[in-house]
């Protein structure tokens, strides 16, 4: 194998890895506030992309994406208020089961609002055939967009959770909801806010990857499964870890593909997930004492 081929496999890994990573980020926000894994996260991506595709017929692309992010954000808030908030004695497990139900509900609703056809947003820069050449290997410019947007989201989220009052309040809710309430934090709205934020980020992610992956009403679940794997490998609640883990898993899959039959690459993803769950449940990039604190 020559250099350009090795680089090409690397870029193929980064391509899938970046899609995994940007999907995984959304899981972390709701988890960081409530400890709940939102299995409807994949659907938020598709709702966002579908809305943007519809809006892009009447508005320029940036406006359409912004509109789609706002609409999905509101939808995320409404879903929390209608389906999550009224649940009495909400155990984490019960809420997770509700999110599974929600994902089916949203998926079927999308089938009726749109239809079963495959759509996609136009490429942000260039066309489906344009490529960027790196060391004799090629990559779609859209992947650079996916990476760039992931980076911006991660930095923005880190700043938000560290330095803003609302961000800190959300983290406080996750650590100890009762204590947070005693400090005067409106914990109910913090949960709503986390759903809105995660829906909005999901929608943005869905728009950015739509030119590459294409968008169909039932694509949320397969995206969410990989995103979920990556979120766990990176350490739940850790956005930076999610991006690193996404790229790691993408590169690992590319490595497997270069040596063995393509069919084995998903086996690798599942094996990695199992190994992490058995030996390092806190994730590759989160210190175990930090995650232990969270579950107290």
């Amino acid at each position, binding site marked *: 194998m020559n250099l350009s081929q090795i680089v090409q496999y690397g870029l193929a890994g980064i391509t899938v890895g970046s899609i995994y990573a940007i999907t995984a980020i959304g899981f972390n926000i709701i988890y960081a506030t409530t400890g709940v894994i939102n299995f409807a996260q994949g659907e938020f991506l598709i709702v966002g992309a579908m809305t943007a595709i519809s809006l892009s017929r009447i508005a320029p692309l940036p406006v359409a994406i912004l509109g789609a992010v706002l609409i999905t954000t509101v939808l995320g808030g409404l879903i929390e208020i209608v389906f999550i908030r009224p649940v009495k004695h909400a155990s984490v497990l019960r809420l997770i089961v509700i999110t599974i139900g929600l994902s089916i509900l949203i998926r079927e609703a999308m089938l009726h609002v749109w239809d079963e056809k495959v759509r996609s947003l136009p490429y942000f820069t260039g066309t489906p055939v344009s*490529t960027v050449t790196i060391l004799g290997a090629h990559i779609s410019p859209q992947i650079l967009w996916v990476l760039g947007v992931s980076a911006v989201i991660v930095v923005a989220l880190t700043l938000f959770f560290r330095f803003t009052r609302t961000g800190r309040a959300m983290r406080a809710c996750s650590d100890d909801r009762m204590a947070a309430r005693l400090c005067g934090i409106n914990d109910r709205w913090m949960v709503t806010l986390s759903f809105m934020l995660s829906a909005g980020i999901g929608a943005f992610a869905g728009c950015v990857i739509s030119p590459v992956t294409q968008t169909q009403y039932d694509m949320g679940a397969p995206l969410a499964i990989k995103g979920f794997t990556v979120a766990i490998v990176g350490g739940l609640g850790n956005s930076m870890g999610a991006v690193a883990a996404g790229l790691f898993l993408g590169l690992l899959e590319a490595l497997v593909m270069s040596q063995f039959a393509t069919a084995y690459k998903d086996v690798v993803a599942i094996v990695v997930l199992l190994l992490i769950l058995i030996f390092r449940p806190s994730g590759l990039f989160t210190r175990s004492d930090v995650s232990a604190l969270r579950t107290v």
Partner: protein
Amino acid sequence: MRTRVAAILVVSVVVLGLVLSPGCKKSPTGTAPEAAAAEPIKVGAILAVTGPASFLGAPEKKTLEMFVEQINQAGGASGHKIELLIKDSGAKPENAISMAKQLIDEEKVLAIIGPSTSGETMAIKNICEEGKTILLSCAAAETIVNPVANQVFKTPQKDSDAARRIFEVMKDAGITKIGVITSNAGFGIAGGQQLQKLAPEYGVTIAISETYDKQETDLTGVLTKLKGAEVEAVVNWSIVPAQSLVAKNMRQIALDVPLFQSHGFGNIKYVEAGGEAANGTIFPCGRLLVADVLPDGHPQKKVLVKYKNDYESRYKEDASTFGGHAYDALLILTEAIKKAGSVEPEQVREAIENLQGVVGTGGVFNFSAQDHNGLDKDAFEVLTVKDGKFVVYEP
């Protein structure tokens, strides 16, 4: 406790409503007096209207609804109105199995049209055989009718013929070393086997053959592998949206060799989703997509143009060859009923085996006891994409 009982009651009522609603549907009222005398015929259809194969099932359902309405308005098949029962399998074989049992045992249908996918068809092949119910599959894999099963027919062209047309083009273009990628669904697996089997006949070597998951969202990895093997052409065999991904990903990694696809590519949506990258894709296909440019004397021209215009004016979307497969299935059934002059299942089945020269959207059907497909490789035209449109391929 009381609320729980109430909740259970509400749920039961809703479920009952769902179960009963199709039965309560008003049966179509006949206008022609002679039709009122003949009993309506029940025809079942198991189609993947939703789910990953919805691009097959959705146009098939629309086509059947339109065609049944046309037949019934014209007085039915030999005076019998057709009562169509469409079931949405979501492309899941396990759903298809229970639906087939229900249609055969409870509804006692004369024939079942569908399923849309090869995997589902193979799953219910024996059920129809044992239930003595005619199955007119809209799925492509050759194993459906080879070996021949008494009750089982299919309308799409054979995948071995599709492979032959692809290899003919390659032979003319001097391509000898190719890479094959297939999806891990029934259609992809069956197509991959045909390619492997027929390649030597045309002097083509398959340097590398890979399978990918049908829900894959990116294929640059597997294409990188093909690029490393220095293939002269890529053949992709799948019915999933991956068909436009392949086109895009190939261009993105600068794998600049011809791309061949199967007859699964015959939906303009894939061209739209693939954008500029889809240009130049070569694939064998039925003539529906080029109906407008067929010479006037072509035997299929009239049927194709009528179906296309009817479908497009009614549903405001482009007709696809897949809807055409359902059209052909119902056409063959009604022609057989006319020929048999009866709605006795066994007589209708025998009539299908004796049908000759039935002009459908997929080709001209000539059935026999040995050939339950009735089409040959001339049913395919080799097409390509030029400026986002399907045109006849010219080397």
